[in-house]
Structures are given as C-alpha cells and as structure tokens.
C-alpha cells in the first residue's frame, strides 16, 4: 500500500493543496498581527476566484486574471478595514458578514461563469536551476514543479517573515497589534498601519482565490473555496502567528486534505491474524472516514489553542495583545 507512486502522488497533492492555505493564511496572519481579525477570508477568496476567472476569460491572460483577483480581494477587504478601523465596528461581525456577502455575490453572479473555458496557469519549473531541482527524487517533482502561483506563495512566506521581523514597517505593524496606545505616542499612525495590514490581507486572500480557480482547479464552480478560508483562519492560530510555522501548518492541513481524498485507497486495517484486529479495525475505519478526516484541522487547531493557553507556553509570538480591539484616540 505504501508504494512509491502513492507517496509521490500524496506529496504532490499535499504541496498543491497547501498553496491556497499559505496565501490566505499569510494574509490573515499580517492582518491579525496588526490587531484586526478578518473572518471574511472565505468571502475574499471567493471574490478573488470569480473575478480572476472573469478577467482571464476577457483578456486571455491568466496573469492579468491573477492580478485582478488579488485586487478584488483587496477591495473587499477595504470594506472590512473601513468598518473595523474607521467605524470601530465589531470585527467578528463585519468579517462574517463579508464572508456571507462574498458567498452570496459570487454564487449570484457566478452561475454564468461556471462553464467558462480558459487557459489557466500551466505547470512549470523554476528558470535556470529548475531542470536540476526536478531531478531530486520525491522532493523534486512535488516541490519544484507546479503552477507559478505555487512558487509565488513560497516566496511570500519568506517575504512576510522578512517584512515582519526585519523591516521597520513590519515592526510598526506588529506594534499597533500589540499596544496601539504606545505605538501612537511613538508617532506611528495606528489607523494607516492597520489599514495597510488589512488591505495586504485582502490582497493575499484574493490571490489565494485566483490561484484556486486559475491554477488549482482550472475552472470556476460555486463555493469553490469550500471552507478553505476558515481553515486559513484556524491555521494562523495553529501557527501561533508565525510565518514559518504557518508553512508547516499549511503542509500538515494540506496533507490531511489529500489523505482524505485518497482515503479509499488507504488500507491501514490490521490483518485478521492480529489479536487486536477486532478491537482496533473499527476505530481505524472510523478515523479514516472522509467526513471524520475533514475535521482534523479544526481539532488540531483547538488542541493547539487550548494547550498554549492552559499550559501558559505563550512566547513572544503568541496572540497579538490588541487583537479584536478597536483603537480610538482617547481625548480624556
């Protein structure tokens, strides 16, 4: 059962499936580090996916489609930013309603694009060194061959890590998510910084959507995000707000997903000669059920969320202190 082709297929599917989570998760991570929870990611992914398809069909260029999808995600995030930052509305409510709006609008207008034909991102290798990298057994074809958006996502992990830990802009962004009052007294424009973070978050969510429809699925279908935006929200908690761990988490959740899709061919049941077969086989069968497997990311996230708080293992990269808190300049 664990032959090489199964493993390669599994690894390949895992890496492909994780790109959506990486892009959307990085966006959510930036937004949350600046103190704004964005539960609208699912909606922004959908908006990015549909607008990406529309633009690709109209212009014939999947790169333009990708850009348009990203920008439409950003525009949706503008509503969230305006409501939560300028109007100090409740972040959870605004986000959930944007997910509902994004689902509604894309379903409403998406019907006619469901059969649209277009050329999406082809699989390719990196220029110059790509040919060599693909020769690496197992790792080569899975990581170094794929749609260009896969490489964009991996590059962004490094870029976001660099932004948040090595640049002034990133440190200012983090400071408005930790202690906006102090940041303000130090001369950082809290409102502008938070806007910037939410808009980048929307841009990346839109990019995740455009990747989903233009590279991963190659077609638009209603509700194409299928809950991946919610998994991205969970992923940020799982990753404890760190880009590196987010990459690991995205692969782990991607692995759950590709295992689930292949669960039919997974045969981990104990042979009849094993004394524990009668006891354990029903358990194994239950745990490998596709419906049960799709809840693993949520359970893992719950466990991480609870464990870090209960065991007080909160390190410097734990939850931003001012997350979900609106900021106003107090006059008194």
């Amino acid at each position, binding site marked *: 059962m664990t032959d090489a082709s199964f493993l390669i297929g599994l690894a390949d599917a895992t890496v492909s499936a994780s790109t959506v989570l990486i892009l959307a998760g990085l966006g959510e991570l930036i937004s949350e580090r600046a103190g704004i929870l964005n539960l609208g990611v699912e909606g922004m992914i959908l908006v990015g996916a549909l607008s990406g398809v529309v633009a690709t069909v109209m212009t014939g260029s999947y790169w333009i489609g990708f850009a348009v999808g990203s920008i439409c995600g950003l525009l949706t995030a503008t509503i969230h930013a305006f409501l939560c930052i300028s*109007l100090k*509305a*409740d972040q959870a*409510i605004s986000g959930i309603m944007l997910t509902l709006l994004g689902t509604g609008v894309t379903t*409403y207008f998406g019907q006619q694009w469901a059969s649209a034909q277009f050329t999406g991102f082809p699989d390719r290798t990196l220029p110059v060194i790509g040919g060599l990298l693909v020769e690496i057994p197992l790792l080569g074809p899975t990581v170094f061959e794929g749609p260009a958006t896969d490489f964009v996502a991996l590059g962004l992990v490094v870029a976001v890590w660099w932004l948040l830990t090595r640049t002034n802009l990133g440190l200012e962004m983090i400071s408005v998510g930790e202690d906006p009052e102090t940041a303000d007294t130090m001369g950082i424009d809290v409102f502008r910084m938070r806007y910037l973070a939410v808009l980048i978050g929307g841009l990346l969510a839109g990019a995740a959507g455009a990747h989903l429809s233009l590279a991963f699925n190659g077609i638009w279908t209603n509700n194409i995000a299928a809950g991946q935006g*919610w998994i991205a929200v969970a992923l940020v908690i799982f990753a404890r707000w760190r880009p590196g761990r987010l990459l690991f988490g995205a692969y782990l959740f991607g692995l759950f997903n590709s295992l689930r899709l292949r669960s039919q061919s997974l045969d981990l049941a104990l042979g009849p000669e094993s004394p524990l077969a009668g006891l354990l086989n029903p358990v194994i069968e239950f745990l490998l059920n596709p*419906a049960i497997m799709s809840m693993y990311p949520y359970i893992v996230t719950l466990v991480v969320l609870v464990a870090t708080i209960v065991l007080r293992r909160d390190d410097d990269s734990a939850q931003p202190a001012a997350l979900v808190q609106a900021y106003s300049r107090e006059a008194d």
Partner: protein
Amino acid sequence: MLVDIEIDAREQTPSWIAYGTPLFAIAAALAVSVVALVAIGVNPIAAYVEMFLRPFGTVATISNVLVRATPLILVGLGVYLPMKAGLWNIGAEGQLLAGAIVGTWIAINVTLPQLLVIPVILFGSAIAGGLWAFIPAWLRAKWGISEIITTLLFTFIAADIQLYLVRGPMQGGSGGFPQTELLPEAAEFPAIPGTRAHVGLLVALLIVVLVYVAMNRTRFGFRVNFVGSNADAAEQAGMSRYRVYLLTLVAGGALAGLAGISEIAGNQSRLHASFAPGYGYTAVPIALLGRNGVFRMLLAALFFALLFVGGNRVTVAMEVPSAIIDIVQALVILFLITAEFFQRYRLSVSIGRRDDGRSIRGTEVTTDD
C-alpha cells in the same frame, strides 16, 4: 477655505435614531440589492413585491413564513442570550446541528406515546445543544479563550459529524441518499390546526416570553445585563463572571439545539445533509438587529423568515438566484454596523471655521431599554 469634519461621542442617542437604525439598515440593504436585481434584468419593484408582500397573500403563505420563523426565533435567542452577557455565539449553527442529530436519534430509536416522546425529544436536543456549547463556554469562562473562534471550530466539527452520520451509521430510507429514515409519526410535532405551522412555534414564543421575564424581572437577568455592559464592574460588585458566561452560553446552545430539532420534527421529517440552510449563521444578524430587546429580536426573526420565504419565491417565479437571500442578509448587517457608528458619534461638518479640534472620543453610549 477650511473644511472641518468633527466627530464627537454622543452623550445620549436620540430615540428616533435608536429606533430608526434597524429600519434604515433594511431599507439601505434593499436599495443596494436593486443593483443585483437590475444586473440580471429583473424588475426590482416586481421582485420586492413578490418577496415581501405576496407572502402575506393567504393563510397558507403566511404559515410558510411562520414555519421558517420557528427555528430562526429559537436559534436567534441562542445568540441573543449570550450577547446580553457580552459573548458572541458565532457557532450557533453547530449547536443547532447537535440538537438536530440527538433529537433525530431519539425520535427514531425511542418508542413512546406522542405526549411523552415529544418532551423527551425536546429535552434531549436542548441537552445536546447545551453540551456542544459547554466546552467553548468553559474555555471562555475559565481561560478567557475567545468564544468566537472556539464556537466556530465546534460548528465545523459538528457539520462533519452530521455528514458522517447521515452517510454512515444513521443513514436510512431508500435510495442511499445522505439522510436518515423518516421520523415515526408519534415524534412529528403536531400542526397548529388549519396551518402548516407546528407546536414548535408555540414553544418558541413561550421561550421568548420566558427569556423576557428572566432578563427583565429576575436577579439572573440583572446579573447578565451587568456583566454584559461592564464585566469588571460586575466582578467588583461580587458577581461571578464565570457563572454568567457559562450559564448564558450553555443556555444559548440549548436553545439552538431546540431550533435544530424543531426544524426536523416540525418541518422536514428527517435529518439530511443540508436541512438547515445556515440558520445558525442567520441567528447572528437576527440577534444583532434585535439586540435592544427580546421582542425586537422576535420581529427580526420574522423579518429574516420572510426574507427566506420571499427569496425562494423570486427564485421560482423570476429565476433570481437564491443567493439574493445571502446578499440582502449580509448588507442589512453591514449597514447596521455602519449606522451604529452614527448612533455613538455625532458627525459635524463645518466650513471655514476652526475650533478646538477635538478628536474622536471613545465614550460608549449603550442604548438598552
């Protein structure tokens, strides 16, 4: 020339603004949705007449609205009650599913006379919904872990369990569809004579009254309101935030659980994969729109029931995609939270004059009645 925009916190919200805000939000949402209707070549006036007036045409159509309203009232209360304590039960959908699953299981597997079995089913569903909210409630009360995230995570888990059950262990009926077998006749909620509405509606209305009494006439209600408006002050006054959080969120889960089974036993007769079109999520807009009193929440539930029924009518009659329901729902709340800013702050624009340049002040004015 100087244009000076000044934002001031209001000391007191004028009552016309407090009462007018929900109506403004609905009107604005319908006005924007005209764009969506015109974009697909539908006459918006005809569509709105079909959506919001035709359902009042006959007793049968009115009872359709009441059938839709029944789970929405119950699950709306399930979000409303914790909201009064300052908690967001965003995952009412999960508690609704838990109630539906356990209630259906009892209905199929426990054979009792109708007068006995229905209370047992209701009780079991309420317990299931309450238990599903218990862990998030406990995590919030004891450890301060955001109930927004945990109730959501529990919702996704409940949805997967439901799928697992209707495809596997609880699958029944012919054709191998992802659904259970039909509920036995004794377990079906009896209809109110002459209508399609069922006793679940009476249960829901009774609970609305009970919640009203509990919130406005008892010490429990006083505590919930106190914790909800200022948890630290309440704690200093000797009230246990822990107990209030635990009680309201678990009670909210129980009410959401009742909503789940009332939809199955009162309307759909079996549990299937998509029996609840997001009622648990709609509960959040309902509670928000009616946040200033339980009877206003009841009105909000009736409005969203009308929206669901009307949305299905325009889908059938005018081929408007049923997603119009989601669009209107989301816009109502987005406009509501926009308008609420103007409940709290006064905006004044003055030209050519400059005064002391006061900026936004964070004083919150509650508008509870």
